[in-house]
């Protein structure tokens, strides 16, 4: 029966417990506040029901009461606000060295590509207890990546990356939903997140070999002729790309921006938007020449040229299976 009629969602990520705790606290606050109001109404409504000959008392109001029921709720609300904000920060601060998965959403499917190279459709395999960071973009309209059991959701937009992370804590198969209405088969844009024990995951990885994403990125890089300008030795008419990712870049207009994934992406499809100091705006746009998957591969490749930056190193071919910095050694994980 409970299988057909669940009352609480599965709790399968490191963040889910925090969300549930605040949710339960809010249930209590809401319960107490509504009980106060409903009991007061019921008591007053029976105690002071109309009796012939008895008139209502004349009462103007009460300043102390007004102040009390303005200030006390405001105090409670601020506490909830802070608690909610803390969780939101956790949700938006991916741990360094998380494994990376590139997600491309389109009407009406999810295309996922592991940095290690495995490609999946509407399904994502992850090992338990590994931090996973999703770098997501859309090929068409806005979608939203939603995994109820992980309590995470993030809209996926065309033309930019949005990012979300999670650490699964319990093996199992969980729903993946598209939560932003995206047209005809919005409700068909669903899939599974398969959380596996490390050994099973290992086996899955081995049965799905593939070149790494950064390796395919390197191929695209050479095919498109990027290397003519972006020479490794810095002698080209474009800046050398080693060590760029994750560092501040000084722009021509004096601003300095952090070279994150969105910066790399923009530099490829809209190179005129931010010109690196000391270079001329001569790079052509590659908008329309690369599809989202190729773009992701290029970004992964450029990132791999900055081994020191988080997310840079583990896309190196030599380190396919276990992300470095994953502090719980494989085989030793508890659920």
């Amino acid at each position, binding site marked *: 029966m409970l299988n057909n009629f669940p009352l609480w*969602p599965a709790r399968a990520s490191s963040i889910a417990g925090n969300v549930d705790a*605040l949710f339960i606290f809010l249930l209590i606050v809401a319960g107490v506040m509504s009980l106060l109001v409903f009991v007061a109404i019921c008591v007053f409504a029976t105690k*002071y029901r109309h009796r012939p000959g008895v*008139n209502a008392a004349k009462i103007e109001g009460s300043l102390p009461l007004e102040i009390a029921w303005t200030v006390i709720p*405001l105090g409670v609300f601020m506490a909830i606000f802070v608690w909610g904000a803390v*969780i*939101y920060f956790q949700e938006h601060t991916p741990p360094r060295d998380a494994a990376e998965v590139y997600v491309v959403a389109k009407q009406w499917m999810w295309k996922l590509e592991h940095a290690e190279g495995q490609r999946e459709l509407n399904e994502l395999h992850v090992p338990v207890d590994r931090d996973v960071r999703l770098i997501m973009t859309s090929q068409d309209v806005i979608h939203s990546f939603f995994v109820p059991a992980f309590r995470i*959701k993030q809209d996926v937009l065309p033309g930019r990356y949005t990012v979300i992370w999670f650490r699964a804590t319990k093996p199992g198969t969980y*729903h993946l939903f598209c939560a932003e209405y995206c047209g005809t088969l919005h409700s068909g844009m669903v899939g599974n997140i398969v959380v596996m024990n490390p050994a099973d995951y290992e086996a899955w990885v081995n049965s799905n070999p593939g070149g790494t994403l950064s390796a395919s990125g390197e191929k695209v890089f050479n095919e498109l002729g990027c290397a003519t300008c972006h020479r490794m030795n810095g002698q080209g008419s474009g800046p050398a790309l080693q060590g760029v990712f994750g560092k501040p870049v000084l722009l021509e207009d004096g601003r300095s921006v952090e070279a994150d994934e969105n910066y790399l992406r923009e530099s490829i499809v809209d190179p005129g938007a931010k010109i690196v100091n000391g270079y001329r705006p001569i790079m052509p746009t590659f908008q329309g020449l690369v599809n989202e998957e190729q773009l992701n591969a290029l970004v992964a490749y450029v990132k791999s040229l900055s081994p020191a930056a988080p997310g840079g190193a583990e896309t190196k071919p030599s380190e396919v299976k276990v992300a470095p910095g994953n502090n719980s050694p494989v085989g030793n994980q508890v659920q």
Partner: protein
Amino acid sequence: MSTVKAQVTERTNYLNADYGVRSWLLTTDHKRIALLYLISITFFFFIGGFYALLIRLELLTPAGDLVQADTYNKLFTMHGMVMVFFFLIPSIPAVLGNFLIPMMIGAKDLAFPRINLLSWYLYIIGGALMCHCMLTGGADTGWTFYVPFSAITNTKFVEAGLAIFVAGFSSILTGLNFVVTVHRMRAPGMTWSRLPLFVWAHYATSIIQLLGTPVIAITILLVAAERTLHLGIFDPKLGGDPLLFQHLFWFYSHPAVYIMILPAMGVISEVIACYARKRIFGYSFVAFSSIAIAVFGFLVWAHHMFVAGISLYSALVFSMLSYAVAVPSAVKVFNWTATLYKGSIHYDAPMLYAFGFIGLFTVGGLTGLFLAALGIDVHVTDTYFVVAHFHYIMVGGAVMGYLGGMHFWWPKISGKLYPEGWAKLAALIVFVGFNLTFFPQFILGYLGMPRRYWDYSHMPEFQVLNVASTAGATILGIGYLLPMVYFLWSLRYGDPAPDNPWNAAGLEWKTASPPPTFNFDSDPVVTWEAYNYDEIDAPHIQEAPVGR
């Protein structure tokens, strides 16, 4: 409450002053225009309700088996657009506000009677465009019409947008009319501190309509331009920003939720004061909380965008401000509750609706606290939790208030009494049906069921709660049909209403039921405070005389 049966003779009133279609279609009498609105919004309420029924029937089973996916998407889109823009936004202001505000402040009409008629014609033109849109296939963008989807869908978005655009001007003009009327047309002695809270609430509403509605009009134009001219305002491929759309949309649509709820709050203040036979507790706090809501309501829009990709810090600011705007709403609920203390409470039908309003609005408001909490919103946004939240406020709250008000002032509007027993029964059915429909959706939302899903065969475990919701919706539907039936019945068979059947305070009760064309036989002068129920009920004091 004992109804004062007065001797009613056939007097000239706004209904029988003139006959014929022309006399209605060219009227500038605010009361007749209110009735024109009443008929038109009821029409749209039934269209929207019909769509809702089909939506609930589709969700009875996990598979998408009743209608096609595209049809389902059009159903919830047209349901939302019709209910929001053609029923709820005009409901209380354009019907009850139109009818009552001049009378409540002792005026003969609104400040601009012809503009009032123009508002109705704009509404009708907008409504006709909406019908045209629906008959030629409808739009499938959702009522929120997010780009880029709305810019590329091949359904009738431009038609729907145009309909909302035109109806928006009707809303702006009504707001303008009310603001000027409240400033300029108050009777001698009707000071701001003597205004009924219904008028304060409508004043606040009108300000939002005036300042907010132009923004949605511009937004619609921009999307239409994007569709036809590919300007690249929102399209990232052309350098545009799809989030800009969401900011513009919610800059109007968050305040718009207050356009829908504030007037209902005004109704509830009148009803509770009357049936508790007391002045509203903390009058000035209730009045100013309406203004506070109108002002703060403009500062919280991005709480609809916490997962949309806005910056961490702007999310913080908008979350905090959302909590700030929840305070004045809470203050109102506490003051209504305190009004009951030491009252002399009657359980007439309008009061039952008011109790229902407080209960449902409280649940709706409290679940708003969940949504404003950033960490929780990430999980429940765009799920059935949000659907339940806003229906508790807009249907549980606003529609409950509208029905309560329709009952309370029906004798004044029609000159007839409705059958009290049926009215109480309907209030009960609506309350029960409503909770059965929407409470399960909170659970569904926390479980993770996304909104706007046509087919949920991937997660059949959601079926039980969906069946409960559909069952509730049928009960709710009956609850809404009942008043429609007995109001119509009362027009013919109802007892004639006395001028003041509830012994209520307020100028509108000091004239005939139905009122004469210019509302009062002689110009009123106000010498008493609002809600002077102590004086009205005091055995030795005669009712304060009207007129000089």
